[in-house]
């Protein structure tokens, strides 16, 4: 057959793209929503097979532990968010923020976004990975601008132009990387394959590698929301529909970080190239500090959590910058847990914003007073993201701190300041959001508990992975980290 020899893994990104095509043609938003969810479910099931296919590394497809892990995570978050979206859009329709035509675009782009990310993760080819990122960006831009309000248009335009420049730079870096690899692996597709380049990293042209590193770091760093390239993130998160914020917050950052991580691995294999860790680490640290201090003055809930995402993404980048199996283990763990926790938070915030009819702190304040369950769930999510026990981010931040201090005492000082200031801001906003008396003109209403089930699932995973990680998962992650350092 024509597909013989093509691994099953190809289906993982193919599924959302196919779904996107179908959704573009389905006029009913109700059907669309369900198709969206089912497609995500299917995609997740397909992705669930990825860990068993580890080792595939053709010219096009790469299924190693890292890509399988991140793809599975992305698909999972996309699935639960699609479930969340089912009821969320009903509320949006009721509030006339979305209509049927927009929803068609929304669903199609949701799938295209997912497909782009999975493509970027599972592709062994630099060019294809780049195309995946580009697709995801364009899809995200279209969704962020969906509301057509002046502010959403501004946000999406900012998002687009900045990320457009970012991915343009990344393309230049990709071309450079190819150029650097040709002396080692020869011209042709091989020189665009992550695995080949990594294997032959020592013989690549170190100086061109440096150049490509600069462009790829800035290019994908923009997508990862690393300071000072982060300014698109808060606006895009605040203005986009919440399901997209939920996915955007975690997944696209992860994809960009994964690419940076792979690049780091290539450069660290080359003696001639600069140490890739330092710039990554510097950007990561800058992001942590920047975001930690920015958190304090926020009035918009989603923008606030976007800054928190910048901080966490910066922390993961920082860990990757440190290098070594321990730090990469910690970084990947942190990335994973943060994605889950942040998606849970955004889902809560989305619900709360719908209940209260606004997404400012002044709109949502005192959530426990009107919807106890939702308020407590949100509080748990924020506690998780703040890196407090019993949730897993405590463990990952612990590990990152250990690695940091082993690396350098002086690095720990700014990192510690950033984490304390950021965590403090999160707790402050937890108190504003969940506690205290609700405002005088606040709309009440509670949510059926069933809608919170996926959120609880997320938090439960964050809890278990942090404190009682099954040995198999731990071994898996450890092997993953060892493979990258």
């Amino acid at each position, binding site marked *: 057959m024509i597909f013989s020899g093509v691994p099953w893994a190809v289906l993982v990104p193919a599924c959302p793209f196919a779904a996107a095509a179908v959704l573009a043609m389905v006029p009913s938003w109700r059907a669309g929503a369900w198709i969206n969810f089912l497609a995500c479910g299917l995609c997740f099931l397909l992705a669930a097979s990825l860990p068993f296919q580890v080792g595939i590394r053709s010219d096009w497809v790469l299924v190693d532990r890292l890509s399988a892990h991140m793809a599975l995570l992305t698909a999972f978050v996309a699935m639960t968010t699609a479930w969340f979206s089912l009821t969320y859009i009903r509320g949006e329709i009721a509030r006339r923020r979305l209509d049927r035509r927009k929803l068609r675009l929304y669903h199609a782009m949701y799938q295209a976004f997912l497909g782009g990310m999975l493509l970027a993760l599972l592709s062994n080819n630099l060019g294809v990975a780049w195309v995946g990122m580009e697709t995801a960006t364009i899809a995200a831009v279209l969704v962020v601008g969906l509301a057509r309000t002046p502010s959403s248009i501004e946000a999406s*335009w*900012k998002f687009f*132009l*900045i990320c457009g*420049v*970012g991915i343009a*730079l990344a393309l230049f870096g990709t071309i450079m990387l190819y150029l650097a690899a040709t002396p080692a692996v020869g011209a042709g597709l091989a020189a665009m394959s992550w695995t080949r380049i990594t294997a032959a990293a020592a013989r690549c042209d170190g*100086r061109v590698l*440096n*150049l490509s590193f*600069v462009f790829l*770091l*800035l290019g994908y760093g*923009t997508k990862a929301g690393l300071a*000072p*390239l982060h*300014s698109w993130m*808060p606006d895009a998160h605040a203005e986009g529909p919440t399901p997209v914020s939920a996915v955007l917050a975690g997944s696209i950052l992860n994809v960009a970080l994964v690419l940076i991580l792979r690049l780091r691995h290539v450069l660290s294999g080359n003696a001639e190239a*600069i140490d890739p860790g330092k*710039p990554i680490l510097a950007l990561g640290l800058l992001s942590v500090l920047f975001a930690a*201090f*920015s958190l*304090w*003055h926020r009035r918009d809930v989603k923008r606030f959590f976007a800054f928190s995402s910048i901080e966490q993404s910066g922390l993961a980048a920082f860990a990757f910058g440190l290098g070594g*199996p*321990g730090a990469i283990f910690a970084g990947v*763990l942190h990335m994973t847990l943060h994605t889950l926790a942040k998606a849970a938070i955004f889902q809560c915030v989305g619900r709360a914003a719908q209940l209260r009819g606004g997404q400012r702190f002044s709109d949502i304040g005192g959530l426990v*007073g009107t919807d106890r369950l939702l308020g407590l769930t949100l509080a748990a999510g924020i*506690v998780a993201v703040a890196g*407090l*026990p*019993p949730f897993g981010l*405590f*463990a*990952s931040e*612990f*590990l990152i*701190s*250990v690695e940091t*201090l*082993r690396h350098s*005492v002086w690095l*720990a000082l700014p990192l*510690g300041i950033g*984490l*304390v200031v950021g965590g*403090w801001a999160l*707790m*402050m906003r937890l*108190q504003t959001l969940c*506690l*205290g008396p609700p405002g005088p003109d606040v709309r009440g209403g509670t949510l059926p508990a069933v809608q919170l089930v996926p959120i609880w699932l997320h938090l439960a995973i964050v809890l278990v992975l*942090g*404190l*009682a*990680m099954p040995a198999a998962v*731990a*071994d898996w*992650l*450890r092997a993953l980290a060892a493979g990258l350092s």
Partner: protein
Amino acid sequence: MILPLLAWLVLALLILAIPAPFSQPYVMPAVAGVCGAAAVAVLGFLAFGAEASEIVVPVGLPGASMRLALDGLSGVFLLLLFVSAGACAVYGHGDRESLAFFPLFVAAMALALLAADGFTLLLGFEAMSLASWAAILVHHEEKASRDAALLYVGMAAFSAACLLPALILLSPAGDRIDGLGFAAMRGAAAPEGFRGVLVLVLVVLGAGSKAGLFPMHVWLPLAHPAAPSHFSALMSGAMTKVALYVMIRVLFDLYAAPPPAWWGVPVIALGAASAVLGGLRANLEGDVKAVLAASTIENVGLIAIGIGVALTARGGDLPGLAALALAGALLHAVNHGVFKTLLFLGVGAASHAGGSRAISKLGGLIHRMPVTTGCVLAGGSALAALPPSSGFASEWLLFQSVLAAPRIGGLGLQIVFAVTVALMAVAAALAASAMVRLIGVAFLGRPRTPRGAVADETDRPARAAMLGLAGVSVALGLLPGPMLRLINPALHALTGSDLAERAGLLLVTPTSVALGYCAPAVAMLVGLGFFAALLVLRRLAVRGHVRGPAWANGFAASPAWLPFGDPVTQYGGDSFAQPIRRALGGALMAALEEVDMPAPGETRAGNLAIHLADPAERYLFAPIGRLRRAISSRADAMTFLSIRATLAVMFVALVVLLVVIAWVQA
């Protein structure tokens, strides 16, 4: 054998937190039962030699297991924890609002004390902070509670951020993820020079901010009053001790080599500052629970002085003195834990019955709540370090250690000790004054509100809890020797010396010469004197008494429409504080009295407003807050840029990186 039992009991506490949110009435009694069982187990462990042991629990840091250990030091603190927690659980049997957090709080503290690796320690430490944070927020509708909780949780984050690096610096480098096991730290070479000093600084800051050491003490008088009483009791009595435990554990056990002698000096200095400032604030606070919280600062300061002296002695290679000082610190930690728990419970009951936490709204409770007042008197006498109470016994040991400390040598150190003695005495006197003020204003005198006049004694379990704690406190005061025997294994492990021959059943001596403090003798003397006086009066003097209006140097009796007398003519909290405020408050607390005196003939009321500012707030927290705001504003300015400016930032970043590359390659 006892360690697995304790681990199971901690697990039981965690499990009890599950039904707790559903307001199950059996939770608190069950918690009390678990705590009681655990206390008995720990007591047995300490009494029978305190053989250290370690177990591995198959949960914890991803890829590693949690390690728990029990030895003499953790045993002492566990004993304190379970005794206080048991009493608090009995006291708080009717609690429904913060039910879930109580077992979690206790379990987290136990976990921190049982931890044998850095991860578990921090996990317990932070979970403990979080549970108590939640308890502070039980009344989250009140802004004061929220503000206190916010400051509290920030300080908790700060303390974790300090402790973690300290533990990492102590642990040997390795590639494995091992959660910073303590055994490895003991085996490793202690970090020296700059890194060693860093360990000291971080531990003092980290543990100190949780314990309430100056200048990180500002949260205590805010946070403790906000929580429900049985929580505040446990926070003050046990939680601050957990922080001190961490300090001792790190400085004496995990830091393997004897540190330089000067290491103790900063600890002593901060301890002395806390003691004086805490004592002073205890005299100035207007909230009864804040008074107790401030007094906790004072006592933590005293304990820190003991730790500092022990540290100095350890560095000066005087294990006997180190053991004496540490014994004082540990004994005071235990004693303070018990009597402060008792006081919080008593004062909590009083403020609940009297309808206010403001010291100047209570009064006259002794008539309606004799048991509570009696228990508070028992606790208060320990707080004021009156012989033969437990507080005196431990402060006596602390004084003895400081009095002996000049042996370590060095004129600078000796002068430090001399000043320390004076400051400790100031603190002790301030504590006595604060106790007189608290009891005299809130419990004695006339009721200041109608509610106070009809206050009801607390319920039976609460009284039982208080009486039990009072009994423990009295026993600790009368028999400090046996308690020191229980502390001995810890002393032996940490300093290489102990008080075995110096802590008798009756007599405690600082040196091996048989001169010392004999609490039973003192108690007997006072008791004999008391009964002799009564007997003589009964024999020689006329019997009976007459009741009449208060004399008050001839002031008229209170009019009929003010059956309790005019409450304003009584000395209130602020008026009692006036002499001390004038003498010390101006210099230390920037006390300012603002008098608004109406001109003669004017009919409006006069007013006296008092402004106080903690130096730590003024000179540390406020500037840091301003700095934070300034940076945040700057960060905002950097974030919310136009597209063009954002692109310019990217462009500059690109150019800079390219220039760096070009430069590196050239």
